[in-house]
């Protein structure tokens, strides 16, 4: 009994330390957003009174509605398409096995390891010939079939009970209906996790949007913030205000979707 209490306490202590360490830089960022650049450089770690000034500077320097729209559009459309295309493929690779497809899958895993920088120039040539440079399509299209997410869904599908599929087949459901009405609801927490991961990757995507988006009004918040950090005299207060804003959408997505995990914990399939 005492051992159980001790162990429980230990878990709390370790989790608290981990949580503190994880969140600390985030708080630092929020505190920074309320301070002037000079105070931040001096290492001030208490809440300051410059929040409104920082906000004002940020909104005059950055066309926020437009830039956040770009980011949101790219991230949302990209996430939805990625989830559809890649979960279908992950399901397909796992549920319908064939030797040939196994080989393709192994090849895909290898392709996953090619650094993006190495493919950027030929990819740019393709989009430039298709007259798609500086469009959302050019940013989204290469990310939609994500080997990584296909891989993820395939691995998660291994835990999907096959009896469910067999039962559905006996009930006369087509393979697509099985995917839609049986697989999808059961795999909710997998989809929730994938949504967070894909949205975050799209929202923070840097190198490819940098190259393919040309005009200032098409850029994403990640690109704009990066440029602001490298000014000769960066305004850190304004910058941190911007980063807080830029972090909010991914946080919100996480907060909303994490309920899915909790639901799953109760074991209830609504």
């Amino acid at each position, binding site marked *: 009994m005492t051992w159980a209490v001790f162990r429980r306490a230990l878990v709390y202590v*370790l*989790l608290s330390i*981990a*949580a*503190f*360490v*994880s*969140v600390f*830089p*985030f708080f630092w*960022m929020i505190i920074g957003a309320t301070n002037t650049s000079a105070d931040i450089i001096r*290492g001030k770690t208490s809440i300051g009174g410059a929040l409104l000034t920082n906000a004002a500077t940020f909104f005059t320097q950055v066309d926020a509605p437009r830039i956040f729209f770009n980011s949101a559009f790219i991230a949302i459309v990209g996430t939805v398409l990625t989830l559809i295309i*890649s979960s*279908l*493929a992950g*399901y*397909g*690779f796992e549920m319908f096995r*064939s030797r040939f*497809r196994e080989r393709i899958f192994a090849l*895909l*895993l*290898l392709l*996953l*390891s*090619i650094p*993006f*920088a*190495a*493919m950027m*120039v*030929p*990819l740019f040539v*393709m989009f430039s010939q298709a007259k798609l440079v500086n469009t959302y399509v050019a940013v989204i299209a*290469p990310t*939609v*079939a994500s080997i*990584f997410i*296909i891989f*993820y869904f395939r691995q*998660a599908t*291994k*835990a999907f009970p096959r009896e469910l599929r067999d039962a559905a087949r006996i009930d006369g459901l087509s*393979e697509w209906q099985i995917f839609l009405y049986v697989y999808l609801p059961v*795999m909710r*927490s997998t989809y929730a*996790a994938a949504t*967070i991961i894909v949205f975050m990757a799209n929202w*923070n995507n840097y190198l490819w949007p940098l190259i393919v988006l040309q005009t200032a009004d098409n850029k994403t918040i*990640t690109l704009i*913030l990066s440029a602001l950090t490298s000014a000769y005299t960066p305004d*850190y207060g304004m*910058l*941190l205000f911007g*980063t807080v804003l830029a*972090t909010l959408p*991914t946080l919100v997505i996480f907060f909303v979707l*994490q309920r899915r*995990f909790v639901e*799953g914990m109760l074991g209830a399939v609504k």
Partner: protein
Amino acid sequence: MAQARLERKEQINGWAFVAPALVLLGLFMIYPIVWSLWMSFQVGKGMNLSFGGFANIIRLTKDPVFLRALGNTFTFFIVQVPIMIVLALLFAVALNDATLRFRGLFRTAIFVPCVTSLIAYSTVFKSMFATDGIINQTLMALHLISGPISWFGDPFWAKVAIIIAITWRWTGYNMIFYLAALQNIDRSIYEAARIDGVPAWARFRYLTIPMLKPVILFTTVVSTIGTLQLFDEVYNFTAGTGGPSDSTVTLSLYIYNLTFKFMPSFGYSATVSWVIVLVVAVLSFLQFLVARDRRRA
């Protein structure tokens, strides 16, 4: 007869599900990859390229920066991936306990690092690792060190700082995969085991780990690839130099520099990229092999 028809139906369905993804991947990966493979046999600068056979591969073996980058990348991989995977697994199992209080709070807190934008993260970490930053202040207050560590002025500590930063950023991320997988596990198995008096560690070892194996394998492969492609942290923390003394230069950073910073040397940077592919191929193969062996045992 019926068997054959069923077989064919399976085949058609199998292709139908993977077709959209394969078409897109073919479109956006095959050409760039063939191009980069062809490039790795080209030598020259900028637009003046000519066929060089294996010249680039020979150049690799004599290039001190490449060898340093390879060594650093391996150091990061060997030290960082196991630490992160174990931490993530422990957090996930702890947080999966339905009787734990503040679960949502802990889960969110530990996940927060990976949603923080790269810009925020690097700005914050650079200032925390500054000579009189909070990390040195804390360590000195605890009397763990006598004077400030020059984190990015010392080849050893620079590596340590990078490892701390990546672990901070990606542990919660991997944890989410484990949590999601734990949710998909039927809880009645645990209940049965508990009623049978199986102790917690044994439930973890003989129930949790085997059932998480696909996801553990997944995160290990992905983390391996991620580490071998490590770029963001070193680029942002060292102003793109991979310093001090090339102690944090990685293969990906070197490829970036060869392509964009130095006199463009495409053929050579493509060759370095294919080294990563080769290394990942070997490592993934080993990891699959290990996973398969365990399954047989």
